[in-house]
């Protein structure tokens, strides 16, 4: 339930803050998203540059990079995920507590990027874990990462606490643990998580 905007601004002039529980709750959640200190490849360098003084990700409440997945809210998949690394990425995601979000940073994390034809490269991390924001680029500029972060904050802000579209941790039936792929004979087994990813239909 949203508060009437006019009433809100009128009350604010009187020094009274009127808000709903949902807004307050989401404001708190989006203002301190702690990413995981986890770099995969080239994009990780741009991710580090984003946290440095020039772009200063701290402005968005995300300066604390946690080395442990147990303390992190956001997984930035920054670089090429190989078939050897994919089980580890899924396992790290499973170890993160809810609420958790994923940014797929760069062409490799989205689709395999320039290395897509390679025999050892996973063609997109969204085959195994749900991705909230994709950023194209090879590597994306720090501004792009900041924009992805702002998009994520908007997404968190818009999440209702009840009913359709509520975050996963408020939904008892939602999938919590994602199956970790195993190295198979030719490829990872299974090749994708059917619950999160379906083969895209090519319209000719």
């Amino acid at each position, binding site marked *: 339930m949203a508060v009437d905007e006019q009433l809100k601004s009128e009350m604010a002039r009187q020094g009274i803050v009127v808000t709903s529980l949902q807004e307050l709750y989401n404001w708190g959640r989006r203002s301190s998203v702690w990413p995981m200190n*986890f770099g*995969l*490849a080239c994009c990780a360098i741009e991710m580090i540059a984003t946290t440095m003084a020039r772009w200063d990700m701290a402005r968005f409440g995300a300066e604390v990079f946690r080395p442990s997945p147990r303390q992190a809210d956001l997984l930035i998949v920054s670089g*090429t995920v190989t078939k*050897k*690394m994919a089980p580890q990425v899924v396992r790290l995601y499973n170890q993160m507590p809810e609420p958790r979000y994923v940014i797929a940073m760069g062409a490799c994390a989205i689709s395999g990027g320039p290395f897509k034809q*390679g025999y050892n490269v996973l063609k997109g991390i969204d085959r195994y874990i749900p991705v909230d924001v994709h950023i194209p680029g*090879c590597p994306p500029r720090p501004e792009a990462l900041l924009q992805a972060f702002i998009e994520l904050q908007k997404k968190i802000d818009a999440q209702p606490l009840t009913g359709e579209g509520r975050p996963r941790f408020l939904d008892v039936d939602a999938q919590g643990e994602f199956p970790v792929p195993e190295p198979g004979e030719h490829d990872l087994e299974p090749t994708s998580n059917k619950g999160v990813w379906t083969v895209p239909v090519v319209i000719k």
Partner: protein
Amino acid sequence: MTKIGTKLGFGRKKKPEGWNRPPVIEQTSEGELLEVAMGPHHPSTHGVFRMNLALDGERVIRLKPEFGYLHRNHEKLGEGQSYLASMPYTDRLDYLCSLTNNWAYALAVEKLTGQQVPERAEYLRVILSELTRFQNHAGTIGFLMQDMGCSGTPLMYAFREREKILDLFEELTGSRMMCNYMRFGGCRVDATPAWLDATRKVVAGLPAFLDEFEALLRSNEILMARTQGVGILPPDLAVNAGITGPLLRASGVNYDIRKVDHYGIYDRFNFKVPLGDHGDVYDRFMIRMLEMRESLKILDQALKEIPGGPVVDPKAKIRGFRPKPGEAYGRIESPKGELGFYLISDGGPNPYRYRVRPPSLINLTVLEDMSLGQNVADVVLILGSVDIVMGEVDR
């Protein structure tokens, strides 16, 4: 209590002979060995690198590196596409120094096809390579300090300067990190006078940064206590194991491919090769500091002398060529060591064999020798001082 170490073959009485065997460290305590897997997700393994350690208390008894978490089929892709199409992939080898990778690959192809490079392009290559070396070394020192627990400040200082250099790269090549700038027989675009002036301005400001950086770190008590006498690499082992770059020179071996090969136009510049005395982590840190100063000397000279003229040889064939059957090896002194590309042509439009000699991988081979007997916290420092980039190690 049985010792796990004995079962696994530790505690051998006889010391193995030969340079390529790590020294055997005897277990001193009665307790069990602790096996620790560091990585692939670890904040200080510089990417997705894994070390399997066997620890006796805090001492490292055995270290087994495990690679391949970032194997991106670089060489296989190179064999399946034309010579030019591999150029953007070389950017992603050592993603901190794309321009030196470009140069090494261009050099190999130029050797294979016998192309000439115009003067101005050679100067531009030197300017860009030395800027790359500067930002890589500054970043490496920053990350080394980060590994030491000095979280933030030195890395922030280094990245402040790095951003200035990356802005120059972006203005000239269109990309901050993946420059894809050099071509066979020259460079892709010419530098404008405004760009050269901007570069002169940035380079003029770098000595002040170096003075500040050095005053901040050089005689810091904690840094000296943590790094001096840690991770010693003896010069004979370094030579025998094929170590190159700052790691070799910190052990006191005078070997710099810029001086040995005189590739490009490096014989025209007046610069020194700093050498270490002890071969420990502190020496590697200081070598990088001093090399940055020498890079600035080269930059000053190159920016003063840069001539006019074309940046690409007008006769050069950049795309769609078929070199005569043969082989070529081009190598340069990249910020991490000897970066070489080995190409075999069978007369087709693609290389028959495309091989990269990555300095990071070969410098990593002595990691166990340097780390045995050290504390586990020092292994992090030793790894940081080797300066690896996983894109180059795994390719």
